[in-house]
């Protein structure tokens, strides 16, 4: 029943949408019915796929860059509380700045190409990743540390054998948030200035009142987001097999 629930919900929404648009005779450029959106999604697939690939690349590279920043950063913050204390206010403040405001600046700095979008996605992603990994380290059962303390284990070994595996559940919940918001970063970057990508396509089509294409781009974007989420969930299950099996 739980597996069917999302499909039931989406189907009923689509049916109501279709009926309302047709009954009220809403113009296609204001709100196209789902049937037309579906048609465009499939017919324009080659065009959409090309742009989707660019956006996917931006998200993927943004994720890689965020990981490369977040993991070392959270380890350093965990090892040195003074660095943690020094950095935390800036990290929090950085999240208070709306990405929308920075986006034009990033385009000026990093150009119209991939780089500005990758940086944009990274800015959105690195914070949840850093915070979740860091708090994962802090939640380690202090009793488990006794074993390592008696052995005078160096930090490096404690990290590899104890802290990192213990932080994995928290890391994965951060990663899930990250992949969910990564799309926002990339698309936002594309809105401000780009030559390719789903965000760019949306702006173009919006200008031409091709609302059906806009929705088609959204469909592809959602599918990409769901795909990423499923991938992360898979990895989570694979690595956290020991978690859901407590007595």
């Amino acid at each position, binding site marked *: 029943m739980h597996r069917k629930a999302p499909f039931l919900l989406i189907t009923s929404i689509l049916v109501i949408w279709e009926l309302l648009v047709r009954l009220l005779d809403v113009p296609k450029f204001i709100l196209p019915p789902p049937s037309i959106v579906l048609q465009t999604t499939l017919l324009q697939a080659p065009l959409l796929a090309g742009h989707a690939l660019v956006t996917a690349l931006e998200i993927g590279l943004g994720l890689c860059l965020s990981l490369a920043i977040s993991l070392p950063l959270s380890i350093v913050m965990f090892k040195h509380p003074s660095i943690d204390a020094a950095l935390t206010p800036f990290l929090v403040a950085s999240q208070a700045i709306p990405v929308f405001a920075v986006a034009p600046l990033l385009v000026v700095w990093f150009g119209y190409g991939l780089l500005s979008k990758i940086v944009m996605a990274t800015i959105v992603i690195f914070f949840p990743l850093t915070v979740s990994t860091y708090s994962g380290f802090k939640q380690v059962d202090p009793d488990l540390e006794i074993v*390592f*303390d*008696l052995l005078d284990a160096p930090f490096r070994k404690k990290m590899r054998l104890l802290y990192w*595996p213990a932080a994995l559940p928290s890391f994965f919940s951060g990663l899930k948030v990250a992949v969910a918001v990564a799309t926002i970063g990339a698309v936002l970057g594309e809105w401000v200035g780009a030559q390719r990508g789903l965000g760019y396509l949306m702006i173009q089509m919006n200008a031409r009142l091709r609302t059906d294409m806009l929705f088609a781009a959204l469909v592809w974007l959602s599918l990409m987001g769901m795909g990423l989420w499923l991938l992360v969930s898979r990895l989570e299950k694979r690595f956290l097999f*020991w978690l859901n099996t407590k007595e």
Partner: protein
Amino acid sequence: MLKVCGITKIYPNLTVFRNINFSTERGNFGVFLGPSGCGKSTLFRVIAGIEGRDSGHIEWKGVKVSDLKDEAAIMLQKDLLLPWSTLLDNVLIPAKVLGKDLQRERNKAIGLLSRFGLSGFEDYFPYQVSGGMRQRAALVRTLLFDREILLLDEPLSALDALTRRLLQKEILRIQLEFEKTVLMITHDIKEALLLADRIFLLSHLPTGIIKEIDMRDMPKPRQSLGPKLAAMEEEIFSILRGELVDA
């Protein structure tokens, strides 16, 4: 000879223990018996060097040492096994941390696991085996610390009565076959009488040793409480009952 002299531990609002003195011969089995919540665990943590102390010193083999961090392995009521590692990997933690020859230690570990009834379970994860088996694995791990002193803090308290009796025998084997000096905390009088060479009766907070019972003249293994041991059980209970009323 292990000598603990004048150990004191004071928290800001609480004197946990003051001026604790005891000694035990190498290869002997000392048992601390007292009401729960009387600071026994803190005593072990201080001796093991996991927590600091306010005064006192420790002598081991005639030499003053700051603590037993390099001499002792510790085992708690919680098995302290890493949930994401197999039993074998858990047992090998000391070898990994100390950078020992893993192949050799592996063979040693597999041999020990099978001597303690875990043959065939090397690649099981902690959640897949019973509490008794987890404690056996924890026991084997303390052996692979390669330390002469074992500090056992209520290692069997969480187990059912039958498993407990079996594991009491294993702990005795560890003392006799592997020539370890064992200090164990328990609140089971019978367990103390079956295993101990010396019993230290502890008072309620601030913890002190109220009586020391020398059991070295009674041969081990002691199968069950004969009339002499049964009388001692009553005597010990009547002494400890006073502490319980105070509590």
